[in-house]
């Protein structure tokens, strides 16, 4: 199953999560002051940015601001740094349970399928082209143990599964794929996209290179209008991954989109990565994927299979963090005495 004309299967490095203390603190006060025993799902916002240091991948990060603001903090909403290039917002859903038992009893596969369905619908409705961050929609389940100040949680980054999987015909550093003129023009166009507050946090885009080697970056929704022109088109995305031989997770759902919407069987893509905050064609990758799914895979009524529960050190188990040291009033009183 892994072979398609003897080409290697395109393998994606999973997205990884990172949760800041401020998120758990705000969740605790929300739970105590507002939510009570209400277990309804909560809309949250994760943040990520393209990989910027060759040694480490970037993460989907949750901060205090990831949760809805307190009623008396509404005024600060405006501050939620729109256009912050280091904090591209991604929508997510939080299911916080009241007990550890109900946390473990959650039907994780159904929850994941429900999120995949949202992504699939956004692809078919065209919403994903207007607001591409929805392609990286994520899921978080948690149990906040406010007696012990410990938090059990599990992330999922839903990825629509291409069956059979996409294969790879080429994957190289962008600097090797492009001519020096093209590389320079693509870098300049990407830096312009990243420096404009209206596009800095838009993580999927089109890279077009005209026959005169001039590159420009355009929003995904311009795909149709780019067709008439005599130019190369690549699908670009902010790649959180730092690995030299694998694209990161966000490429999965954009490949699903290009097939579902435009029936593309051969897709060139740019894994956009930075060095010290600027476009880096040495670490960015350019690749070409072949997608050949059976008839009917594109049926809007029929959601493809989905994967994406985050592993914890290679195992399928949830994570747990204890903040008793910094949050437990009893312990704080003792350490202050």
């Amino acid at each position: 199953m892994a072979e398609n004309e003897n080409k290697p299967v395109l393998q994606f490095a999973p997205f990884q999560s990172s949760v800041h203390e401020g998120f758990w603190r705000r969740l605790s006060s929300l739970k105590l002051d507002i939510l009570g025993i209400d277990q309804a799902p909560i809309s949250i916002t994760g943040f990520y940015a393209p990989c910027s240091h060759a040694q480490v991948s970037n993460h989907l990060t949750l901060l205090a601001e990831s949760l809805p603001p307190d009623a008396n903090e509404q005024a600060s909403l405006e501050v939620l740094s729109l256009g912050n290039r280091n904090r591209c917002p991604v929508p997510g859903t939080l299911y916080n349970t009241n007990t550890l038992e109900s946390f473990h009893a959650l039907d994780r596969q159904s929850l994941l399928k429900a999120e995949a369905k949202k992504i699939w619908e956004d692809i078919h409705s065209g919403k994903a082209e207007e607001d591409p961050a929805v392609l990286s929609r994520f899921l978080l389940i948690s149990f906040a143990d406010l007696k012990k100040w410990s938090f059990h949680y599990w992330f999922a980054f839903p990825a629509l599964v291409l069956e059979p999987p996409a294969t790879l015909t080429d994957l190289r550093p962008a600097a090797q794929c492009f001519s020096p003129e093209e590389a320079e023009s693509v870098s300049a166009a990407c830096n312009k996209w990243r420096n404009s507050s209206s596009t800095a946090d838009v993580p999927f885009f089109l890279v077009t290179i005209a026959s005169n080697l001039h590159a420009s970056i355009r929003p995904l929704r311009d795909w149709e209008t780019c067709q008439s022109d005599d130019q190369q088109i690549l699908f670009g995305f902010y790649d959180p991954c730092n690995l030299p031989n694998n694209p990161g997770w966000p490429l999965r759902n954009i490949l699903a989109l290009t097939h579902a919407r435009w029936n593309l069987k051969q897709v060139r893509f740019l894994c956009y990565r930075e060095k010290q905050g600027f476009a880096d064609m040495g670490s960015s990758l350019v690749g070409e994927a072949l997608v050949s799914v059976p008839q009917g895979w594109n049926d809007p009524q029929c959601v493809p299979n989905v994967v994406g529960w985050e592993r914890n050190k290679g195992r399928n188990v949830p994570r747990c963090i204890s903040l008793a040291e910094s949050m437990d009033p009893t312990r704080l009183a003792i350490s202050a005495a």
Partner: protein
Amino acid sequence: DTVERITGPRTVSAFKEKGVLSISEFVIAGDNLVSKCPTWSWESGEPSKRKSYLPHDKQYLITRNVPCLRRAASVEEEYEAAGGELLLDNEDNDGWLATHGKPKETKYDEENLPTMETLEISKKKTIQSISSYFGGEEEEDIPDMAEYEESDNVIEADPATLQSTYLVAHEPDDDNILRTRTYDVSITYDKYYQTPRVWLTGYDESRMLLQPELVMEDVSQDHARKTVTIEDHPHLPGKHASVHPCRHGAVMKKIIDVLMSRGVEPEVDKYLFLFLKFVASVIPTIEYDYTMDFDLGSTSH
């Protein structure tokens, strides 16, 4: 402009005389850092902790997910063992001068750094995850963990998922372990000392929060004993490690004096680049950006 409106009339600059910054100068220097090194950004932090004397969207500066490949403590030991002099600090706290002009990476042998290739090679050997303070749920909390693992094999069956990224190569008898921690480095304005102040939030290999005490392993050992303390962050929740600012003004004054003796007129918007260069001697293995490929000031001759 915004800065003027908020801070009122500009105070006389004590930048060259004392190595300190006024509030408006801090904002100017921060704007310049963000524009030259875009991995840094301004943030507003916790609304309840907002300082009225700073613009609400420019309360502090932060760069996230900064790699830290080695523990500063072990780098210093190796450097000393190799017969090198420790340049990091001395009684006057001006040891940074000895390293001036050298990128901080050159303080240790780059070839000893674990690279992707060494990771690839050692993958074939024992593979285990490095334990961390915070981790998965306790085994006793999940009696049915084995069941969990078996029942959830969808991702394992997915040939398009790269499997190995969570594993860390570990060789018990070899120190060549990839200990990639990451840091969020933030800079706040300390109104009392009138200088910037650096804060460190650490994460382990699996991006779980590090105890602040473990952050001390990534601080030059002289400073870990003397000037780095664990305190409440002025804009973020929780305790974080911080370089105490009591000597910052004096150190910055020395840096400015050295530059002026070389005929360079320091400019206040470059303050944070100089400051971050000095801070690099305190946290030598945390690889944040502070590149200075431009003039520090106007050269007078």
